[in-house]
């Protein structure tokens, strides 16, 4: 990433529009023909996705955000594949959302959530690479006065074999930039890939091992001051009063300001001084209605939803009422899943320079365009006077898809016109102001005939809707939240993997004042635990092997079955496990990919030792198998941290957990050995960042039940005095 370090080098003092920008776009208007757009260093664009420097360095534009998941590298691989360039000379840069808007959204969607960074932009970024290659070939052909069809391109070298002439991309880039971008471009068959599909190393590692990578928290601007902020601990609450005079004279303090109606910030020379003063500042809050809410009151509301008459239907076939009425055997179980914080390693932050003429933001965001929209709204300035410069994210996991912290930083900076303000949330603020994994309960009912065939399944989810909380415009017209059925839908990118004669999956929406959010895996985390552990309960009730029980229901779902079979084979399901070791399975589909997991555990007292995990992913096309393996292994860290430790509780309306001492995360000593099976079957593009997390918890829970005969149905496991060995 060559973009980020420019922040400190660029001529901020000159006050140009280019402050920290990746692309200072300049336009050459030629007497005739199209205009040449130039990057900050003067190198020409060959279409919007590619810049080629005279020294043959290829700069690939990436609109999606890098937060550790590897999409920056994967997207560059896709462009480079079609461009036929020398991978060793590829670098990347982020266009800004402001630049994109000014060019009619030239770079498409910036949103980097729902594991869609690659799967929803592979087509147009590959076309961008292919178009640039065609332009470079044409430019060489024009120079040599030969037909373009006689010129070949490979590793950034253009060759005319007939005349034995060669040139490089850097030498014809100027001429290529003046050509029209071709509209009809053919893409390679993935089986011919040489760069994409390969386990290449990431492009952003070097600066992550020497301390030079700049994250949002590390941004420095001349004359910058720092802000610490505290919002109402009860979401929806307001500031009643605060005693600014008490801290105004503390060392380094410059100003104490109210932010919107719900927060107070201290601005100081250093963040440490700002935070210290904020800690001493007495703030009176009006908690509002939310102040009366606790975990117990929320649990009661959710419990009522489990049997409520009305619910939104997500998936149904047959007649579940008849199946239940006529069942020879009925199995029931009730589950509960808590609020959880994303707890990105880097707490939320943003740096803002606001003047009456311009508002610029530097921040780590998963959605540059959402951050841009928040900036426009909070700054009071028109879009063409705002921009957002994306900085490397210290983790995202869904949290940085929201722009609440960006808006807050703009509102603070607006009260210090002309002074750049870096606002950083303390870890405690980050814990209090999360966008929490939604809280739900679930009642599962399964029915059998007298031959132990599964005849019916009713899955009633009761709980919070993420969309109702933070994106109500995306609710369906009837008020239902389609996302609550992720992993359970009849078809599509989050399809249910079983065929059950009588099926009903429905959702009783029960919202609270606690802000929900998209948390890695989103709604499938709890849906997968409910469904996949209950499948094991049903298998046990029928006296059947959990694998064989599933297989009978999966005949119509070959790709779901494919990954399940793969993990069963690899873990040796049909062979006995080592003495004292027990196994569990799970499978799911979400974010366009099929995933399955198998776990081997042993249990001693209240300690669960996870010996081995096998996890299979079929993402259709695997753009970088090495990075997929890392996402798979990392998903078990995130997913098992959630299973064993992750819970945010509510008291008097506020979240009780404040830091990692009471919101723990798995350490290296607890890390199980994860064997990833990456098995792309082709023909579709699935996501990778999230799907595997879905099978982490249920596979381990099923193995725990196999070991002990005990079913745990409320989470996290620490509440049952269970710990990782």
């Amino acid at each position, binding site marked *: 990433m060559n973009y980020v370090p420019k922040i400190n080098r660029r001529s901020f003092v000159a006050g140009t529009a280019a402050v920290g920008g990746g692309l200072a776009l300049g336009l050459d208007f030629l007497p005739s023909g199209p205009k040449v757009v130039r990057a900050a260093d003067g190198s020409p664009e060959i279409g919007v996705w590619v810049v080629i420097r005279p020294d043959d360095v290829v700069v690939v534009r990436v609109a999606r955000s890098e937060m550790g998941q590897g999409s920056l590298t994967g997207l560059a691989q896709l462009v480079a594949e079609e461009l036929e360039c020398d991978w060793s000379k590829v670098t990347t840069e982020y266009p800004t959302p402001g630049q994109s808007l000014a060019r009619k959204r030239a770079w498409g969607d910036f949103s980097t959530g729902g594991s869609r960074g690659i799967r929803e932009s592979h087509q147009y970024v590959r076309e961008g690479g292919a178009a640039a290659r065609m332009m470079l070939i044409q430019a060489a052909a024009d120079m040599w006065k030969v037909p373009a069809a006689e010129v070949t391109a490979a590793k950034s070298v253009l060759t005319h074999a007939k005349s034995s002439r060669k040139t490089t991309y850097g030498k014809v880039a100027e001429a290529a930039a003046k050509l029209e971008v071709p509209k009809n471009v053919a893409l390679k068959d993935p089986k011919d890939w040489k760069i994409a599909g390969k386990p290449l190393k990431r492009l952003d*590692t070097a600066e992550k091992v020497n301390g030079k990578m700049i994250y949002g928290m590390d941004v420095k601007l001349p004359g910058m001051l720092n802000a610490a902020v505290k919002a109402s601990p009860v979401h929806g609450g307001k500031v009643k009063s605060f005693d600014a005079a008490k801290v105004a004279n503390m060392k380094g303090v410059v100003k104490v300001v109210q932010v919107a109606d719900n927060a107070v910030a201290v601005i100081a020379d250093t963040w440490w001084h700002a935070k210290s003063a904020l800690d001493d500042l007495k703030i009176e809050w009006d908690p509002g209605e939310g102040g009366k809410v606790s975990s117990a009151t929320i649990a009661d509301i959710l419990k009522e939803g489990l049997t409520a008459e009305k619910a939104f239907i997500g998936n149904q076939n047959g007649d579940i009422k008849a199946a239940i009425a006529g069942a020879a055997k009925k199995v029931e179980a009730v589950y509960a899943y808590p609020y959880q914080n994303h707890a990105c390693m880097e707490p939320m932050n943003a740096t803002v320079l606001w003047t009456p003429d311009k508002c610029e933001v530097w921040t780590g965001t998963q959605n540059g365009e959402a951050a841009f929209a928040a900036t426009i709204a909070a700054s009071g300035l028109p879009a063409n006077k705002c921009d957002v410069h994306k900085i490397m994210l210290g983790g995202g996991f869904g949290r940085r898809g929201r722009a609440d912290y960006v808006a807050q930083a703009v509102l603070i900076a607006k009260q210090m016109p002309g002074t750049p303000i870096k606002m950083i949330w303390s870890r405690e603020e980050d814990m209090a102001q999360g966008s929490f994994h939604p809280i739900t309960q679930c009642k599962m009912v399964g029915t059998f005939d007298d031959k132990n065939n599964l005849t019916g399944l009713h899955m009633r989810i009761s709980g919070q809707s993420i969309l109702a909380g933070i994106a109500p415009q995306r609710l369906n017209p009837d008020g239902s939240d389609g996302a609550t059925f992720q992993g359970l839908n009849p078809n599509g990118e989050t399809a249910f993997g079983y065929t059950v004669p009588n099926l009903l999956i429905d959702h009783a929406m029960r919202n609270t004042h606690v802000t929900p959010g998209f948390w890695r895996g989103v709604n499938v985390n709890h849906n997968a635990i409910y469904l996949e552990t209950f499948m094991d309960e049903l298998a046990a009730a029928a006296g059947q092997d959990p694998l064989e029980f599933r297989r009978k229901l999966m005949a119509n779902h070959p790709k779901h079955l494919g990954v399940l079979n793969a993990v069963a084979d690899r873990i040796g399901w049909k062979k006995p496990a080592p003495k004292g070791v027990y196994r569990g399975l799970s499978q799911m589909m979400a974010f366009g990919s099929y995933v399955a997991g198998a776990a081997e555990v042993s249990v001693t007292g209240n300690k669960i030792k996870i010996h081995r995990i096998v996890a299979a992913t079929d993402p259709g096309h695997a753009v970088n198998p090495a990075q997929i393996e890392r996402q798979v292994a990392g998903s078990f*860290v995130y997913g098992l941290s959630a299973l064993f430790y992750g819970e945010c509780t509510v008291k008097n309306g506020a979240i009780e957990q404040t830091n990692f001492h009471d919101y723990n995360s798995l350490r*290296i000593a607890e890390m199980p050995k994860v064997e990833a099976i990456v098995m792309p079957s082709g023909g579709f593009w699935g996501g990778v960042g999230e799907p595997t997390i879905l099978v982490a918890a249920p596979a381990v829970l099923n193995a725990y039940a196999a070991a002990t005969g005990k079913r745990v149905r409320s989470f996290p496991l620490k509440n049952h005095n269970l710990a990782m060995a």
Partner: protein
Amino acid sequence: MPRLNINGKNYDVDAEPEIPLLWAIRELVGLTGTKYGCGIAQCGACTVHVNGVATRSCSFPVSAAAGKNITTIEGLAPNGTLTKVQKAWLEHDVPQCGFCQSGMIMAVSALLKTKPKPTDADIDAAITNICRCGTFQQVRAAIHAAANA
């Protein structure tokens, strides 16, 4: 005014004695490779070496650091020659988001000084840094690779 020796260079910092070393390094000296993750010595993102000992600088006052040799991630590879640990990190493509990795690398570097060939159990006992991306599998492989380099 405390004098801090960081990466072999002296800095006179305008810091109250109780300011955590982390914030003196980041805000007064201006080296931002050392990260803030929790402020209560839980996550290890702020790990630096104080006289060679891995130290969580968010909970270590400047007054205690004065006069000692402090090494941050920026000073780990003097003259730009990467250490064995950094090279292993590159070779194993360890970082994901990378925010915890400065602290992780500093903790591992200190471990290898006292235990040049750590066992898995040694690693489990000594490396307690939090990584939310979950790079532990690569971290472990890279530690062994660095130890054997």
